[in-house]
Structure formats: C-alpha cells, structure tokens
C-alpha cells in the first residue's frame, strides 16, 4: 500500500491528570481513508487523547494535528470540529429536546449535512423522533450520537466507544455504516473494547497502554508478522535467550516456553535451535491474543 497522507498526527503528546500521567509521550498517526481502531485498557489514556484531539483538554506538551491544523489552537480546533464527526464517551444531549430537535439543532452547524445518511440511520436504528432525549435508553442515545456523527458529511469520524450499550444487531449495523463511510472516502478513528469489531472492519490498529503506543500497525500486517512461537527444550528453558525478544511476557511451563514474536521468527528460531530447542512451532494469533499479551500486564 502506498504511504498515504495522515489525517491525525500525534507526536510525544503528554497530559497529566492529577498525580497520574494519563498520556505519557504518545505517538501515532492515522492514514487518510483508513478505519483505525484505538485500543487499550480502561484508563490507558484513550478518552484523554480524544478529548485533546477535539479541544476539550489541552496537552501539557507535545503536539497533535488533524488535517494539518494544530489541535491546541482554539480557532484551528473549531475548523477541525467542523470537518469531524464525533461521538463522545458520554452520550448525553439536551434533555429538553426531542430526538427531532436534536437532529435539527445539529444540522444547522454543518452545511455538508447528508440527508441520505440521516434517513438511513433513522431507519436502521429505529430512533423515536418525538421522544425527549432524556427518556432514551443508553443504547438509543448511542444510536442518536452515531446518527449525528455520520450524517454531518464529515471527513473524519472520531468515535469514543460508539457501540457502548448497543445490542449485537445495532453493533453490526454500526460496523456496516463504518465500512460504508470509509467507502465514501472518510477516515474513521474509533476506540472500542470489542476486539472482534475492530478486527472485522479496521485496516489499522493503534494499541496504547499507560499513555503510550505499544503497537501501531496495519492489521493484516500484524496478523502476518505476529505469531505465537512455542519452544521445547531438553532440560530447562534458557530464559536469558528470550531477553528483549517478542511482545509481552514469556510463558514458561516446565520445559516449554512460548511468546509472541513480531516478525523476528527466522533469526530467533535459529538461535533457539542453537540453544538446544528440540521443537519450534509457530501458530497464528488473533487480535485478542495480541491485546492480552501486550497490555495484559502482570497477573
């Protein structure tokens, strides 16, 4: 794939919240036209990052830009928000407005508003137009937030846990929508704890832990490169051999050891063989395994 331009670029971004450094030197970029999954455990810094991207918080240091506009400049951030569809972590609206009022209110801010998308979302999500937003269930509020983000004719969608509270049918509809939006040329950046959703529609993932990116890659490439390597040794496992190798922790059970390797298979297999490994096997892994290994932490 040719290296496309990046829509979101974040460099050495830092943000301290109280005594915790929520974002601690984060680097990543989101290529134009991709669907990028933003992954990490609770408290990894996803929401803080997204809030900085959209001007709700200011970075302590480092920089970020969207469409080449600096995020910490308020006027620039207004221009960013005009071109960005956003679903926030808190899906709350004005309780005195009905669903219809809320849609009409939002429509006024975006001249590129797509009536076809509004209609499609209303139909697919079966939103009750005349209901007050305060009377909507959590899932319905998520759906309304999605309608507002998808219909505004944005160039970029930043979605913070968009499928939160959605039933499996609605979540699948969202995935269809995300794909269709990408097919129309939009870039989608979304955080989720539903790894299978990410695996299904994302071509790119950015995995963060403790405020830093631990894995940023094309998903297909990750699946090709990252394998579980299992070794069996005649007596004990030479732990020193594995130092500085692989993703996550080395698992040792008796004379067997296994770990995730990232494309360094061949050379490492040779070293393991030289160290006396009697059996070396590589098996493919899915995103969940990669996630658990890289950010699972010590148990």
């Amino acid at each position: 794939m040719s290296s496309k331009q990046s829509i979101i670029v974040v460099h050495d971004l830092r943000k301290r919240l109280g005594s915790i450094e929520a974002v601690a030197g984060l680097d990543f970029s989101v290529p134009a036209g991709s669907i990028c999954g933003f992954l990490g455990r609770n408290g990894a810094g996803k929401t803080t990052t997204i809030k900085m991207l959209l001007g709700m918080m200011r970075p302590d240091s480092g920089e970020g830009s969207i469409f080449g506009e600096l995020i910490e400049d308020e006027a620039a951030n207004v221009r960013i928000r005009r071109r960005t569809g956003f679903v926030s972590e808190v899906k709350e609206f004005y309780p005195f407005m009905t669903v219809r009022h809320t849609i009409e209110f939002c429509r006024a801010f975006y001249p590129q508003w797509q009536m076809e998308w509004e209609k499609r979302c209303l139909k697919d999500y079966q939103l009750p137009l005349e209901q007050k937003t305060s009377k909507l269930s959590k899932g319905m509020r998520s759906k309304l937030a999605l309608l507002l983000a998808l219909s505004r004719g944005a160039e970029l969608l930043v979605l913070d846990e968009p499928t939160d509270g959605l039933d499996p049918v609605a979540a699948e509809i969202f995935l269809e929508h995300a794909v269709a939006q990408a097919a129309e040329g939009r870039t989608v950046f979304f955080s989720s704890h539903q790894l299978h959703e990410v695996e299904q529609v994302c071509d790119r993932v950015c995995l963060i832990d403790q405020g830093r990116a631990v894995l940023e890659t094309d998903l297909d490439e990750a699946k090709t490169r990252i394998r579980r390597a299992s070794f069996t040794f005649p007596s004990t496992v030479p732990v020193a051999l594995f130092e500085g190798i692989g993703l996550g922790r080395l698992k040792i059970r008796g004379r067997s050891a296994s770990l995730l390797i990232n494309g360094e298979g061949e050379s490492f297999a040779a070293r393991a063989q030289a160290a006396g490994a009697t059996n070396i096997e590589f098996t493919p892994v899915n995103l969940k395994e990669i996630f658990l290994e890289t950010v699972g932490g010590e148990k």
Partner: protein
Amino acid sequence: MLFRIHSDSGVPIYLQLVRQVMHAIETGALRPGDQLPAIRSLAEEAVTNPNTVAKAYRELEYEGIIELRQGLGAFVRANLPSAEQGQAMKQAHRAVGAAVTAMRKLGLSEASMRRVFEAELMKEEEASAPAFTRR
C-alpha cells in the same frame, strides 16, 4: 458468490478473500470473464474494510487471477495463469500430498501438520516489521 469473513481467525482478512476467490474459481463458482463485486459493495456486503478488499484484489491481480479494468471493475481473467500455473498447482498438490502421507506415517495429527506447515511458511516471510515499540 458469497464471501464469509472470519475476523478473529488470525488469518489476515485480505488473505481470506484471496483464498475464497481462488476457491470459487477452482469450484467453478466463478468463471473466466465473470465480474467480481465492486470493492465498495463487497466491503459493505461482507462488512469489512474497503482497503482490505482493495488489497485482496491487488493481490489477485498480482497473481494474475483477476484483471482490474479502469472504471469497469474486477474480472476473472479469460486466460488464467493457465497451463503452466495449473501444472505448477498440480505439482504442488502432489508434493504436499506426499508430505502429508509422510507425516501421517510419522504419526502426526492434523493439527501438528498444520503447525509444521505454518512454521515452514513463517520462515519464508521476512518482510519489514510493522511499527512497534516495546515497553
């Protein structure tokens, strides 16, 4: 034809698509000259990333299995990698068949055979590593 994606299988989705198209050609579900769905409609139908579909099509084109005609779409090639390739595939099937028989004799289970096969393939793949930092 119908595509089925197993997103959590560990096999890259573009590769699943490539395999399914090849399988469809082998079984006759797709014939030379047939048009494949447009990238966008396949992406929406299979609910997968359009870039991934595009990548699968590029891969298929590179393998000489389909032809991308500007503005018209993707078509199964009329002259598929033909005789030579067909011959090569037959030889490959024979070679793998022999290997499988040999491994059976060694008492290997199907799962172990797959792992051995994967491990061998792994040795071949030594492309550039994805961006990756270790804590």
